[in-house]
């Protein structure tokens, strides 16, 4: 929608002789200096909105990016994607991977001044997992001892979370889990102020231990959120910024206009035309960053429904797709990706080729499947038209047309069925409902289990709400996925996931196509910014070096 709007407005503005060329970047005040300066308000925007800033409920990318400003975690991923101490100074993995002990910092206080202790951490976790809390990822923590009893309202506390001292907390699991520590970085595991109480409340004002805090009036829903520096932040000297403002529901052309005049410092939402303009303009090259590939996309092939119950047809689809054409839909945001593990995840092997475009190979797979196709005459192929469920206003609406065009070259004819996002979500995960659909997955944390378990394990198959949308069952893969959870040696674990990746590329429950990353442009006065491998909008060490002290006003900062 926005690209059409952007393109048409550019066209008309061009006709009227208006200048749509990019202006020069606004210069930094002291480009020669490297020591960070303190102060200033960094402003950026999103075309999306946030519904909640309560870490027990926030579950979308935009909200999570603000949640990390307000709420610190016991441990978090560092700039290299490794787990690092945060509120916990250190941790131990005990009892063969069934007990995790965290030694908490003793100098941490919540935004309201109250001390952060192991008891507060236990209360926060119990609040997030309480059966009355609308937490959409509570079940990630179901391995904690006593989870079933607690969420079944049988006991008042979660037994598996033990306060061993004022600043020592243990979490016991029912079975060893090598993927448990990354779960402690997610929003529901971030401690909340005592004012949040033991149960979820919609009207609780967000309050945590993060580098920024939310003051009264700082969040105008549907308009902006303004977080200000937490003077009691436990990391000395940080953050450098006085405040961060994020504006919502702002369409890409408006973001560009505001960015040009200095009302925004950082932009990620562009029209297609503007990404090309910025990417080609030499003056902006030092101000462009590429975010991590957190999302993978592919074509889900329902292995329970014909013709995709035949592995040769699935292999034919995987070989018939020319991924390069897919990336042309958003050249600055899409990369070719041909396997199940995202490139930013440990265990991803860049040497592994995965699925690849091979038209002759695809025709051979069709022949083996019993559907030979002659491209010269157009005779043969799969005799029925395959419905392809897709929703409008996204990348998939465009890539779906490419799928249709490219599969017709091997005798697979598909019909695009456009439905609303809500209908798509409901139908594409219902057993026996959809033969083929585009799918994507955004990694919650950089661990292969976070992608492979929900998408391809047979334990994720359900009659409805099946995250395994290909309804793919492979006992060998299931065994490997289970084994990976009990393997704590990183190399051996990587080898297991490498084997999983090979099985999935060959069995092709998905034809993997692309991965998505952010295309970010900042004004040169935004210093110290580097994309984080996990978190969007990582401004933890960002500072401002404006050339002028006069900042164009935008509303809340006045």
């Amino acid at each position, binding site marked *: 929608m926005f690209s059409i709007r952007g393109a048409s407005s550019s066209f008309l503005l061009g006709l009227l002789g208006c200048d749509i060329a990019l202006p020069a970047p606004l210069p930094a005040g002291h480009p020669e200096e490297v020591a960070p300066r303190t102060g200033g308000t960094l402003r950026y925007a999103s075309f999306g909105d946030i519904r909640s800033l309560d870490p027990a409920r926030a579950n979308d990318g935009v909200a999570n990016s603000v949640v990390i400003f307000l709420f610190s975690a016991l441990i978090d991923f560092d700039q290299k994607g490794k787990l690092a101490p945060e509120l916990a100074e250190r941790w131990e993995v005990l009892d063969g991977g069934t007990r995790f002990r965290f030694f908490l910092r003793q100098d941490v206080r919540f935004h309201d001044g109250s001390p952060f202790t192991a008891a507060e951490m236990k209360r926060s976790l119990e609040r997030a997992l309480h059966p009355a809390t609308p*937490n*959409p990822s509570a079940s990630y923590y179901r391995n904690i001892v006593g989870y079933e009893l607690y969420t079944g309202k049988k006991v008042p506390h979660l037994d598996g979370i033990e306060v061993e001292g004022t600043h020592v907390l243990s979490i016991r699991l029912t079975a060893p889990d090598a993927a448990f520590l990354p779960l402690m970085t997610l929003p529901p595991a971030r401690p909340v102020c005592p004012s949040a109480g033991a149960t979820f409340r919609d009207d609780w004002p967000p309050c945590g231990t993060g580098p920024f805090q939310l003051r009264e009036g700082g969040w105008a829903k549907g308009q902006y959120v303004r977080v200000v520096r937490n003077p009691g932040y436990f990391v000395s000297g940080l953050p450098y910024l006085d405040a961060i403002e994020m504006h919502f529901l702002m369409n890409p052309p408006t973001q560009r206009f505001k960015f040009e005049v200095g009302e925004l410092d950082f932009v990620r939402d562009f029209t297609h035309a503007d990404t090309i303009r910025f990417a080609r303009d030499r003056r902006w090259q030092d101000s462009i960053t590429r975010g991590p590939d957190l999302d993978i996309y592919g074509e889900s092939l329902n292995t329970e429904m014909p013709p995709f119950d035949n592995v040769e047809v699935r292999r034919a689809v995987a070989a018939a797709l020319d991924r390069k054409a897919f990336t042309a839909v958003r050249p600055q945001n899409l990369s070719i990706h041909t396997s199940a593990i995202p490139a930013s995840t440990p265990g991803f092997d860049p040497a592994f080729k995965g699925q690849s475009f091979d038209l002759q190979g695809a025709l051979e797979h069709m022949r083996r499947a019993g559907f030979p196709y002659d491209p010269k005459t157009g005779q043969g192929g799969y005799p029925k038209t395959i419905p392809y469920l897709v929703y409008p206003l996204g990348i998939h609406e465009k890539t779906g047309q490419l799928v249709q065009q490219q599969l017709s070259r091997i005798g697979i004819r598909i019909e695009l069925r456009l439905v609303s996002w*809500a209908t798509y979500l409901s139908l594409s995960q219902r057993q026996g409902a959809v033969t083929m659909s585009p799918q994507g997955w955004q990694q919650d944390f950089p661990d292969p289990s976070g992608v492979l378990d929900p998408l391809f394990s047979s334990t994720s198959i359900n009659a409805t709400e099946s995250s395994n949308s290909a309804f793919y069952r492979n006992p060998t893969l299931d065994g490997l996925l289970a084994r990976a959870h009990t393997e704590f040696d990183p190399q051996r674990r990587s080898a297991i996931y490498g084997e999983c990746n090979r099985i999935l590329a060959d069995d092709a429950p998905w034809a993997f196509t692309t991965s998505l990353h952010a295309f970010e442009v900042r004004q040169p006065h935004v210093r110290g910014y580097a994309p984080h491998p996990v978190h969007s909008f990582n401004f933890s060490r960002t500072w401002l070096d404006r050339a002028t002290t006069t900042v164009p006003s935008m509303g809340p900062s006045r």
Partner: protein
Amino acid sequence: MNVLKHAVGRIFWALAVVFAVASASFFLLNALPGDPARVVAGPQARPEDLARVREELQLDQPIVIRYGLFLRTLGHVANPKADAERGQVEKERELKSGLEKPKRAAHATCQRVASLAGGYEFHVDFGRSYQHRAPVAKVIFERYPRSLALAIAGIFLQLVIGVTLGAIAAAKKGTWIDRFVTSLTSLAVSAPTFLTAVLLQYLFAHRFRLLPLDGFGDTFAGHVRSIALPALTLGLYGAAYFARLTRDELITLMSQDFVRTARAKGASRLRAFVVHGLRGALLPLATAAGLELGALASGAAVTESIFRWPGLGHLGVEAVLNRDGPMVIGVVFVAASSVVIATAAIDIFGYWLHPLARAKSSN
């Protein structure tokens, strides 16, 4: 008396229409495929988490029960103080028995419309938004005045620009001015509002920096500055319609016998034009303006989205896309009420203005 009788009849009819529209939207929304809980929880939520969200949103209840709850609370008289005390007693009893259940405070999602005698109040309650996690009535009562303000500002500009252009075109009928105005109105009517909006943003906010690009503003002056461009967007689009309506009405009226008689009796051309012509065009103009006000007051979705004007328009579209049932019903209720009230008001106004209609009714 006849006017009053007519007005009462129209009001009852209006209430029935609003109720029917809200009920129809409730059932239609539930008939659509797609799970609101799935939209709330996100595409990656697991079945057990979805079940938890579904229970929390009461989506696990049969549709008839949910409709009953909707009807029971939609409009009601309550005594919040007494209800709160009763709730506290119940909570203490549950605490003693160790069976305390998390529950929401009484009237937590209500919006007080009027205070009655004896501590009683009249409330409306559309429930809690699935997406916003806030009482729908509260969100709507906060946003409706903003949409109404934009609608009034937009219609004011539509009338000022439209009537002026229409009157000039009618006065200069058949000349190049008439042709120019007619062409201009064709262009304005044809241009989609998003294009007009982006052009106005580019010219007035980006190029000349006279007005804010978007937003709502913090102060009264800020609101006025922020409303200018969205109101002008709506104004330009609607002005074209009013210009054509005014022109056609005036040309027709100016050729009527009573105008010729007025001129023969010595009235100047200007007086005949203003007093007899424009006054005669008042009723169709008021009818059109009233209907437009009713429609715009429930939100001009595209214009509000582009200018980030926090009114009802974007809220309604977003609610439909997200299957946010309570919010859809709330917005539909307010939208239908706006249109119906505007229609009824015009009808009563027209009835009052038109002696012939009153005479027919009394016969």
